[in-house]
């Protein structure tokens, strides 16, 4: 990422399109809204053509459940953890915090993908070539590898930072 040293208060990209009042932006927005509404309508029509109305209730519950699962569970938990880390972790170097964050997020995202796989395998598959691995063990190994790599990165960064510091004071 390149960044010019002096950034104007009003950036050039906004000036060229002259904000929301620019004609190009207005046309683009109109086209996008028309196309978007048409596609939403098409999706709704396809749904009514192919899915029995008796299933709409269940679909609606799952659609609303998806938003609740994110907005009321995942996001607040993440925000809460970020707050606690922000408060307790201020003596820790921000880079170390960032490295830890990369490791934890990677592990959590892998788990989000793999845990349903473990459950699905436990429920039984149609044949042995579906979900052939021991995903639980593999996930545990993945967490271990992520933890080791994260720890290594923290150690390497800390050593380098100390050397830098020593050179500066010398």
């Amino acid at each position, binding site marked *: 990422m390149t960044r010019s040293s002096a950034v104007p208060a009003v950036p050039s990209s906004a000036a060229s399109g002259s904000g929301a009042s620019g004609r190009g932006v207005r046309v683009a927005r109109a086209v996008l809204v028309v196309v978007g509404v048409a596609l939403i309508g098409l999706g709704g029509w396809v749904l009514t053509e192919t899915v029995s109305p008796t*299933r709409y209730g269940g679909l609606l519950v799952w659609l609303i459940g998806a938003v609740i699962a994110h907005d009321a569970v995942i996001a607040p938990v993440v925000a809460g953890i970020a707050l606690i880390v922000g408060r307790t972790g201020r003596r820790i170097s921000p880079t170390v915090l960032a490295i830890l964050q990369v490791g934890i997020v990677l592990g959590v995202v892998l788990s989000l993908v793999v845990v349903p796989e473990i459950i699905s395998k436990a429920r039984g598959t149609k044949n042995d070539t579906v979900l052939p691995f021991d995903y639980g063990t593999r996930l545990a190994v993945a967490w271990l590898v992520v933890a080791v790599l994260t720890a290594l990165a923290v150690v390497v960064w800390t050593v380098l930072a100390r050397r830098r510091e020593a050179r500066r004071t010398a």
Partner: protein
Amino acid sequence: MMSAMRQLLLTLRTAASSPSRNARSATVLGRLLAAAFLVCLLTGLYSHFLQEPASWMRFPTSPVWLYQVTQGIHITAGIAAIPLLLGKLHAVFPQLFQHPPVRHPVQVLERASIALFISTSVLQLVTGLLNTYQWYPWPFPFKQVHFALSFVIIGSLAVHIAVKLPLITRYWRARDSYDADGRFVEPSGELDPARAEHEAVRELARMRRDDAPTSTPQPAAVEPSAPQPRGLVGRVTRWIDDAREPERDPARSRVSRRGFFGAIGASTVGVVALTAGQSFTPLQPLNAFGPRQRGIGPNDLPVNRTASAAKVLETAMDPDWQLTIAHGERTMAFTASDLQAMAQGDERLPISCVEGWSQTAHWRGPRLVELMALVGAPADRSLRVTSLEEKGGYRVMLMGPEYATDPATLVALEVNGGRLDIEHGYPARMIAPGRPGVLQTKWLSLIEVI
């Protein structure tokens, strides 16, 4: 009441704010996410029309890996979209607590399109992922809903982009987004369609200026000298403010942003690298979590529908089995040894599933064109192919003339050097270039020219 509501929303918004949660992060992740969803739509549509073509549609039979690669990309882009969507939602989370929730008609459209986008895209990714695990815990049909929602997702995304276009263009480039110290440059009011979007942020900044002694950032907790809300609300607000304190330092906030993008980038690369080996040969050694693995199964090939599920265990093993080929009044029947006695074609063709996994195998059997020539079938006709299966959505398969006349299409009797296993369609199965696995009909019984 209103002021308590306002205080609550502002508090939540402060609590949720962080250096990575700004319009630039949302723009960067939004671009990637939009690209992933668009790729999923196009590759999904390709598969849809291959499976349910209009009568005039014809498809390329070459390169033979076209379907394999498009569906590998479909599933991989969908998996990559999981961390991207989580990152995007993380970047915009404080917007949930706008005050007032709706101030302008455009905002009604905006919030409605966002609600629609979030619910449909989260559901699409969850159900799509679980479909590759063949687990269906929801009370609606997967295929139809997946197809219908794909249009709703892209449509609501288009509306969302339209509403946010001024912000997107404003923060398209990194150098326009941060000042020399690396501080995020807040948007000016007129950039925003409803003007309300960032008022809460600026209001918050004003409140902070009034409240706190804005000298050098203190590492330790400092009680602000100005009056604060009392009681529980005050305590919570102070605690949150305290937690946020380090992030007001530009150097720290830059590192925090890099950490955020590093986390999303590493997660995306991680989930793709560890699953895409089920679809792409170079990543095969890394396939730790893919729901399929190449080389596993009878004839070293994975199976989807088994012979017992298809209820063909007896009919397929019947020694009197015959493949009937009908062209109007002309009908011919071939036993397995008749077919084996014919000239055998050898082809390397992939078997590719809409669920993303695929494997190229070495197939052997009479070429379909030669069989059709025996009954005098014209080149421009479609075929109706019927399996021994008693029932099932793919018992009868229609084959367009582009596949019926392609010399690579085989009535396969052998795969990978051995006689077809019953799980792979013994005594004979169809294998054509560039078609979905479900249309490579197993346990052949009847081929009709239509």
